[in-house]
């Protein structure tokens, strides 16, 4: 079975090639973090959301695994809207209202609705990459397409939280759920 031996050889070669080549590109997780950073730049919070002009912009992570949380450290301490980004991991539910951005790692329907109920009308920008997130009441959903990542916005939920977005962000959004502008998108 010389042919089989050769097949196995090529298989091994293929695996080898993969490890040799597998460098240099941005990972999906990194791109998502870059998106979150951009959202921070294009969102306006009510002034009441910050106690002083020097207060940091707080990004909270819940239900994210360690790998994802580690990628977020790349934007820790960066500037957005003249404020320093501060990252809090594994935030308890009673502290959620103190966040400005809440990134939900694993946003299943049940726990998401629970979290959103806890937040109430607090000015917190909620972001997740789980399918259906904006339909459960989340504000921004990152959508992985075949070869790129897009996002969708629930503008009604944003209004409910008293936060607003720049027109540029809305323009680039794939879907905008907006009951006040019937049929504009979707």
């Amino acid at each position, binding site marked *: 079975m010389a042919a089989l031996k050769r097949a*196995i050889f*090529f298989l091994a070669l293929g695996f080898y090639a*993969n490890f040799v080549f597998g460098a240099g590109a941005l990972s999906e997780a990194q791109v998502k973090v870059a998106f979150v950073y951009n959202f921070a730049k294009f969102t306006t919070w009510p002034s009441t959301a910050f106690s002083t002009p020097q207060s940091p912009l707080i990004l909270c992570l819940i239900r994210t695994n360690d790998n994802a949380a580690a990628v977020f450290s790349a934007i820790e301490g*960066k500037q957005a809207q003249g404020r320093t980004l501060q990252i809090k991991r594994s935030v308890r539910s009673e502290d959620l209202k103190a966040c400005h951005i809440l990134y939900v790692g694993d946003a299943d329907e049940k726990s998401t609705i629970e979290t959103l109920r806890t937040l109430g009308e607090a000015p917190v920008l909620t972001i997740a990459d789980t399918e259906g997130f904006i339909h459960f009441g989340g504000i921004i959903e990152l959508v992985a397409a*075949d070869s790129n*990542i897009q996002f969708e916005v629930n503008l009604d939920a944003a209004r409910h939280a008293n936060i607003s977005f720049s027109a540029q962000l809305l323009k680039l959004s794939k879907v905008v759920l907006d009951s006040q502008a019937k049929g504009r998108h979707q």
Partner: protein
Amino acid sequence: MRNAGKNLATAWKSRRAAFSKPMETANSQRHPSLRRIFLFFCYIAATGLVSSNTAKAAPAEDDDLTQFSLEQLINLNVYSASKFTQKASDAPSAVTVITAADIKAYGYRKLVDILKSIRGIYGRYDRNYDFIGLRGFGRPGDYNSRFLLLLDGYRLNDAVYDTATVGTEFILDVDLIDRVEFVPGPGSSIYGSNAFFGVVNVITRTAKDVKDVKGLEASLETASYNTNKARLTYGKELDNGLHVLLSNSFYYSKGRNLYFKEFDTASTNNGIAQNLDYDRYGNFFTKLSYNAFTLMAAYSERKKGVPTSAYGTPFNDPNTHTIDKQTFIDLQYNQGHDEKLNMMARVFYGEFPYDGSLPYTDNNTVIINHDLARPQWWGGELKFVNTQFNKHKLVYGAEYRDNIRQDLSNYDDDSTTGYSESHSSRRYGIYIQDEYALRENWIINAGMRYDSYGGASNIINPRLGLIYKLDTSSTVKLLYGTAFRTPNAYELYYQTDLDKPNPTLKPEKIKTYDLIFEKYYDNRFRFVIDAFYYKTRDLIDQRNDPLDGKSTFLNIAPVEARGAEFEAERHWGNGAKIRASLALQKTRDSATGAALSNSPELLVKFNGLTPLFSTKLQSGFEVQYTGRRDTTNAGTAGGYVIANLTLLAGQWTKNLEMSMSVYNMFDKRYADPGGDEVSNTIAGTPSGLDTIYQDGRNYRFKLTYHF
């Protein structure tokens, strides 16, 4: 397609009966230079090392995520870390999905190339049509009739041969495919006839998706053997909500002169078939969507030269060719897409005229024989997906199909008489399937379909699946299913001087058992084992009657197939991914105790896709091993390893995409088993081609421009 020609017996006899194993192809080079291969890999290894070093040396590029604007991020090519959906592990099968990104990355040119990358599927090309086999069944003489081929849910199998076209005669340009979903195993409990070994659902790209065609897209290809292809696609989302997709493609391959040792005599051009491997097609596809309505229409026309002396035609006769034309129109209404009750209704019309020009020699004069089929059909379908009931997902529906024409004819140029017959038939089916979440970790999937065909005949096909989740990442599935296929008009009625009809054929049936284990690690790694046992009853098989040398279709004794498939898939965050599979299978004909022909016992596949330097450039590497196969004439086609490599420059400039592919890169000489169309046994003496040689190393260069 198929067998024709008169006085064939004499034609075959006059041919050289000697018939040995594989032979040399005139212009193939027998020396795949090992040194060159070695150098190539040194080169790749070196460039790869350079790329990983530069990446390490410049961490700033990776770390500084803040430099990207939103617009850049959206257009950045990122390969989804995981396309594994949770749904897939709940499905009562082990589904494989190949996406448009894979089609580009591996340089796939035909639907069959896509399918052959899937675990357990192997191919056969007779230099006219492409065929696929699964789990050891790839019956010569069928036109993929045991696979149901769907295009956005529309059934493409025609009304005479049940053909599932997977070669250049496929109705759609593969560039227009968004993804191909392959569901192995019987699907008759939902789809009825033809869903015997598997269901191939081809899903087309739409104008809807932002990522997709928006405006004009033009693509040009040039390839070995004087092959050129052009495609123009237009996609637009109009202000009134109408989505328009239009596409047109043209392909012409001059082909090479092929050498066949079997015909190496002075009277048959020393075995060289001159200018007969040409392949020409054009196709048109349009899709219009407005709210819940989608209208699809497609047309394709292919003319293929036949270099193999198939169907008893004289070797190297320039008049030998086949023409396949396909048309369909399908109107679909889809309501409540994301709601608890979804309804889909469709009406469709289709036709698939086939014209074979098959000369034969009679008393030293060449007479052209015309072999025609005129299938024509229309029908409708209604399907509901209901998730209103807690813990239940119900799928139910009904299907009706009227085969208006199932006409076959065969006549000579010089005579007004010939053979011709007209048939028509109707069939309908109703089905229901319930996916019931018995407990948190138990799912029962049960369904059945009732089919009525040909008047009083009917059949019920059940399916039962037990799905048990061991934990959040591993699933065990135990599946039982049956499937059937009614004999088609070609198998029942076709007759020439070399073919006998058999109107008493019964439908063929199969019972299948699968035990599947699926494991996911961290959404990045997937592992599947599928052990199966299949048993057919009354399998319809083309056999040669030794008494008169005529081909005919018979219901044969039960055939058993058993085996196991293994597949592992791994994705990396930077877009790299690999998929490797191994299929072991054994078939046994209970009448003879022997294995079936065209049934490899081992298939090994590897697919690897990796970015090189950055996401702008990626390589797709594919290796496939197909084990030894017996031929219909008790010969063998040896096992072989094929490797293909594609380099794809995705975002070199904003609008341009380039790719370069080398197929069969080690220039392996290999052959597929021939079928009854190219070989024959007269009075115990085989003649014609027992195996058919395939292409050596060949190249393709492709440019796609988005306006």
